[in-house]
């Protein structure tokens, strides 16, 4: 483990001291020296995730595909989303906006004397158990992510954005990052603030993000797999999450209002939104406006979905009489 850490940190340090650090110094922005070093690690982790998806997860999709036929051209745009997100291009843009906001909120609270709690203070035993402590913070983070996800489906203007993620008819391991940048911004801001409030460490946050996103990439895989009868109740897998992307049908108008959990299905089990029936269903959204996202490129999707969002936040009396695609399809 020590050798792996040395190798990882050695590469990070070399990349930073060779390419990034000198630029920061030349620009006279040394106050950003440490954050820039961490950004290099973020990009490295992104490259590693892409490698795991392309070489590991894709193997299972190729070997045991669930949907053997379909328009594979629809998948290409999801690869663009994955690269833009994992290599930090979208996260960097989001960071530039969210960082000052989250900082201001945190600093305001701390200047009032409010400091984020550490669960280790309530449960001292956790302080000596790094893995247990990490798992507690991971579970808390996932709890917040579960309720955010429910909000993305329940609030019309948020659904207008989030529906882009659900519009994919050819769901694969590349689909997890298929989100509108505004949707990414809102969820990032909320989760960063939540993490600060409950006391997640910066290092823990990065690990939670990486492990969580890998689980989520796998849960979008085009395979009929799970972690077993008990395992699928502990960790979200492709069979569980595919139901959440299911195309609504006359018998199951609310089918996608289930299995929201990003990583730990316990939230769906506790709050009555879990379904384990093992049925195969096609994916997508039964709204022609949203379904039209399929076949569009990254930029066109971003523009048209932002248009959907604008219409959704426009007061009802100012809207045109018929505005498809504004409501969650369950309604």
């Amino acid at each position, binding site marked *: 483990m020590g050798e792996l850490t040395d190798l990882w940190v050695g590469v990070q*340090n070399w990349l930073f001291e060779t390419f990034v650090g000198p630029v920061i110094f030349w620009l006279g922005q040394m106050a950003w*020296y440490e954050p820039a070093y961490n950004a290099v690690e973020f990009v490295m982790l992104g490259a590693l995730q892409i490698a795991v998806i392309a070489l590991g997860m894709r193997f299972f999709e190729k070997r045991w595909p669930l949907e053997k036929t379909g328009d594979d051209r629809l998948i290409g745009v999801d690869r663009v989303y994955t690269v833009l997100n994992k290599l930090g291009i979208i996260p960097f843009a989001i960071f530039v906006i969210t960082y000052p906001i989250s900082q201001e909120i945190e600093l305001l609270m*701390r200047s009032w*004397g409010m400091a984020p709690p550490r669960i*280790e203070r309530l449960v001292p035993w956790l302080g*000596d158990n790094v893995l247990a402590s990490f798992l507690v913070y991971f579970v808390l983070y996932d709890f917040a992510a579960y309720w955010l996800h429910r909000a993305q489906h329940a609030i019309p203007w948020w659904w207008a954005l989030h529906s882009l993620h659900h519009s994919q008819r050819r769901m694969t391991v590349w689909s997890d990052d298929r989100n509108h940048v505004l949707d990414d911004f809102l969820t990032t801001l909320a989760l960063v603030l939540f993490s600060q409030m409950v006391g997640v*460490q910066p*290092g823990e946050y990065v690990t939670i993000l990486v492990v969580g996103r890998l689980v989520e990439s796998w849960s979008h895989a085009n395979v009929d797999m799970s972690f077993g009868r008990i395992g699928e109740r502990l960790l979200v897998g492709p069979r569980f999450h595919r139901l959440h992307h299911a195309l609504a049908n006359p018998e199951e108008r609310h089918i996608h209002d289930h299995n929201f959990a990003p990583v730990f299905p316990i939230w769906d089990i506790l709050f009555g939104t879990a379904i384990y029936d093992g049925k195969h269903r096609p994916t997508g959204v039964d709204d022609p406006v949203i379904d039209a996202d399929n076949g569009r490129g990254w930029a066109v999707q971003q523009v048209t979905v932002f248009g959907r969002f604008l219409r959704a936040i426009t007061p009802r009396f100012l809207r045109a009489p018929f505005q498809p695609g504004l409501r969650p399809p369950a309604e």
Partner: protein
Amino acid sequence: MKRLAIAATMLLAVVGTAKADAVLVLNSEEASYSILSRATRTELARLPVGREPHHLMPTPDGKEVLIGSTATNELLALDSNTGDRRRVIANIIDPYQLGFSRDGKWFVTVAYRLDHVDIFHADGFKLAGRIFIDGLPSHMAFDAESKTVFVSLQQSGRLAAFDLATQTLKWNVPVGNTPAGVLMLPDNNRLLVALTGEDGVAVVDPKDGKVTGRLQTGKGAHNFWPKGDGRHWFVSNRVEGSVSLIDTQDMKLTGSIKVPGGPDCMDITADGKELWVTQRFLRRVAVVDLEQMKVVASIPVGKSPHGVYMLKSGPAAPGSPVSPAGGPLRAVSTGSGTTR
């Protein structure tokens, strides 16, 4: 049973010996501190502490060492001989850098992220005054009379002086790009300010903040630590990846040691033979042999190691030179009979 008792006794003896020569290192991005053995150059333990611990400082009586947890607004006090936890001092807002005035009456913290300087009565840590100041206040130094604290402002490129008794600003002047470490030289007439956005240190007049000279050390000059003879000081250069040795009497560079990985805080062993330097980016602490002037070991610790401190420091010797932020310094046997 007898064997078990012998083994337990031996273990306790080893732990005891280890604590006696222990070095504390703050892992700023892991909310932990490492305890290292000076003799074996290994990590003995990694213990939890608040959140985002950056710097630490012994108390004027030398009995405790205080660790500032910036994100949990508190200080953790450890026994400076054994490293055992003693108490938590709460409601110290964003204690990024800590320091005591030479007379031990004032305790000052700078809130790097919250942009303020807090001046406390050291006895009881009662807040005397808070001064808000823009520009990322980061490092500090005190004058010999314990009347003034000098604080570098990294983002605005300035150095500010505050009157301790009245908690008011005396002056605030530009000194160079990204000033960090501040050092009051023993003559009490010159301040040195490490310029992290440049490649050396500025010499500043403590009366008015006027820059009177410059000395090139290396790119990203960041922090100071005394060699112990009252004349030579080490300067860590974060971008250059080196530690410079400067002669503050003749104001010249006398040596340079390659220390990769963003070298930052330093401490020297009591015998004056080794300098320990945190390597922020490599998650290690470098051990520099000062006779050979090179790194002879690098010890793995936690993420982003920042402050480093040798236990068993003892109380300050009267009139001894002080560490950059004013903490007491133990006697070192450098042959010159001086203290650091």
